[in-house]
């Protein structure tokens, strides 16, 4: 029998807070982090809203406990801040006391910084400290910088499956624990806003000029966000022997592919349906056991139809309360799965269901509507967290209350 996988520490930074406590406060206050960018050099800075972390890089260096230096990108800094909190939260002072792996997720690596110096880098006539950013062009850079600074020396990996990247990082880490390869894995993702990605999604006509409206009839797209989140995963036997404080269980997960279109899900949500169904099956829970679904809910035309159809097909007329927290944070791409996994844990611990902000009109294709007001004092036992992305990459996680 494979080991159960427990979550024993969490850390995060998003547009609504520099740590888990601040995120919870803003969720409770129903305060969105969406606004306009102060740090990206784009013609859309006053046009397209984003969920930007409210710090310049200089201030992120401080939060990460480092002196400002060349070569550390915003992606790395966000990741470091979340990583330090996660390790502290799990009570890990000596990282190498037991072998621990690190599975990171990233969609464009250090693009946030390299896009500023790229044309200098390719210009033979230019020399300067910008050359230190050459290594940051890929996705492994942020992973290795974080690993080296906090001291991971064992298994490391970086996953990139678009918007489901960090959900897949959590899954991969959990599977390594179940295989008995490691008793502790730290998994999640980091994402910084870039002009590259903003223009990419805008060229797909997928970005809303207003604050995003998931599951609303009038929605016209997503808002991008940035942030980072990591979760410490431990095997049941290790967590118990170590006396770890258990925050919850990663009881089920599933990764499927849509095999429908490079950037769109199937209209009936086949991939989403399968991902949720199989994750629940693994978790051993029935439909009525699901207390809350933190949907992917990007507010793009296609995602919300497809995900909504999948919910209706899977749960019939009894779809559990669901909401998208993207109107709080924006769509943080590679970090989204891990950020929302932490929101799922907070929902369980605090008895909360978050409101789906900016919703006003039911979609004509669906019978269901999201939760629109903050619900408190709810018994939450099992949360499904969805992450669906480009390339048809779907991932669903089931996060469950730890009953002792």
């Amino acid at each position, binding site marked *: 029998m494979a080991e159960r996988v427990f979550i024993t520490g969490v850390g995060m930074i998003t547009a609504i807070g520099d740590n888990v406590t601040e995120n919870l406060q803003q969720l409770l206050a129903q305060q969105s982090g969406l606004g306009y960018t102060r740090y990206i050099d784009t013609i859309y800075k006053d046009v397209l809203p984003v969920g930007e972390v409210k710090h310049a890089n200089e201030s992120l260096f401080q939060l990460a406990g480092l002196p400002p230096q060349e070569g550390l990108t915003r992606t790395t800094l966000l990741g470091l801040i979340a990583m330090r909190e996660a390790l502290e939260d799990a009570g890990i002072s000596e990282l190498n006391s037991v072998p621990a792996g690190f599975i990171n997720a990233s969609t464009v690596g250090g693009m946030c910084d390299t896009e500023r110096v790229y044309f200098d880098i*390719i210009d033979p006539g230019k020399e300067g400290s910008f050359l230190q950013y050459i290594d940051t062009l890929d996705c492994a850079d942020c992973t290795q910088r974080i690993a080296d600074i906090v001291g991971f020396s064992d298994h490391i990996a970086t996953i990139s499956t678009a918007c489901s990247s960090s959900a897949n990082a959590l899954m991969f880490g959990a599977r390594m624990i179940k295989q008995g390869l490691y008793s502790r894995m730290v998994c999640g993702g980091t994402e910084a806003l870039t002009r590259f990605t903003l223009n990419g999604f805008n*060229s797909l006509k997928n970005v809303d000029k207003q604050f995003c409206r998931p599951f609303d009839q009038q929605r016209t797209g997503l808002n991008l966000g940035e942030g980072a989140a990591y979760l410490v995963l431990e095997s049941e036997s290790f967590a118990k022997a170590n006396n770890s404080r258990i925050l919850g269980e990663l009881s089920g997960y599933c990764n499927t*592919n849509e095999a429908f279109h*490079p950037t769109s899900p199937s209209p009936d949500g*086949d991939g989403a349906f399968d991902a949720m169904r199989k994750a629940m099956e693994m978790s051993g829970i029935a439909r009525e056991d699901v207390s809350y679904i933190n949907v992917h809910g990007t507010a793009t035309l296609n995602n919300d139809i497809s995900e909504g159809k999948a919910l209706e097909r899977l749960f019939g007329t009894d779809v559990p309360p669901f909401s998208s927290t993207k109107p709080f944070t924006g769509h943080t791409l590679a970090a989204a799965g891990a950020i929302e996994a932490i929101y799922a844990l907070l929902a369980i611990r605090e008895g909360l269901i978050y409101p789906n902000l900016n919703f006003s009109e039911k979609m004509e294709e669906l019978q269901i509507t999201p939760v629109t007001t903050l619900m408190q004092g709810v018994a939450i036992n099992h949360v499904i967290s969805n992450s669906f992305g480009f390339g048809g*990459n779907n991932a669903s996680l089931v996060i469950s209350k730890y009953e002792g």
Partner: protein
Amino acid sequence: MAAISPQPTFEENCFSSPISFSTTNLLPCLEPDYKPFIPANSLRRMSRVLKMGLAASLKCIADSGIKVSGPIVTGTGKGSLQDTEKFLKEIVTYKETALNPTPFIQSTYNSVNGLIALQQKCTAYNNTFVHRGFSFENALLDSMMLLQEGEDHVLTGAFEEITREHFYIKSRIGFWKEEQIDSRELLSHHSPGSVAGEGAAFFMLTNQPTEKSYASITGLKLLYKPATEKLLSALQTFAPAVDAVITGRNGDSRFDHFYDTVEKYFGNTPQIPFKQLCGEYDTASAFGMWLGAHLLRAQELPQAWIGQPIAKPVNRLLLYNHFYGEQHVLIMLERV
């Protein structure tokens, strides 16, 4: 399995061809005719590494004889550089307006995987690792775990391209040799840097041997920035005796000591280098594994390719590779 590489590895009887080489420190792939694999209207839109990845995966599936699609797991250090470069430039050229989304879509690292799944109508598990010299290696680990978890077979691969622009970028931080060399002579040029390469290689991994099996993967170990002692202790537990070592030696004098350590550890065991054939890139170990698996089944490799005759029989092969001293991998391959 199937490979597109700087050698004619995609063609039948590829080993009878003379070794292809370069004198510019950039060893490009011999790209095959894609038309038998990809419809013309799709080909037009696809950038280079997408074509290489998709064609190699499709040929691998055909070679395996397996009809039912299963999980797809890949590794790539850099994804589609051509598309990334194009989109970066178009943002500036067109001042962020009226951009064509295709290069953005194709620049996402999981686009090759998505494309294979789409082409194969494959809705199973799908994952992409993007971690320099651990990209293919983590894909391999993921695939082996999937087989352990009960999957019957997994399509596992790696793909990488080098562009002129990226070649220049990496030359600025010492990736390539300063002096221009004949790639066939790579290993006799002990100086900083190597020769750039590229390639796509795919493998169908099954949990049981089939009559088509080339080799069996019996061990995998990843080491991140190891000290020499850590490498040695991994070798001790991992590979007490082998018939030959497939070595990732690349002529880079800065990091040769790791290969020296392994060579010394195995004493007189033959060392079979492969980077003179494929150049250096994030996922070059996939080409090394392709070569090793071929050797185990055929029990031969042309002397012109590897510079030495093969002492038969070859039953156990260890592949050792590292990427610029940071990501090290040991893969044990055995004859089926």
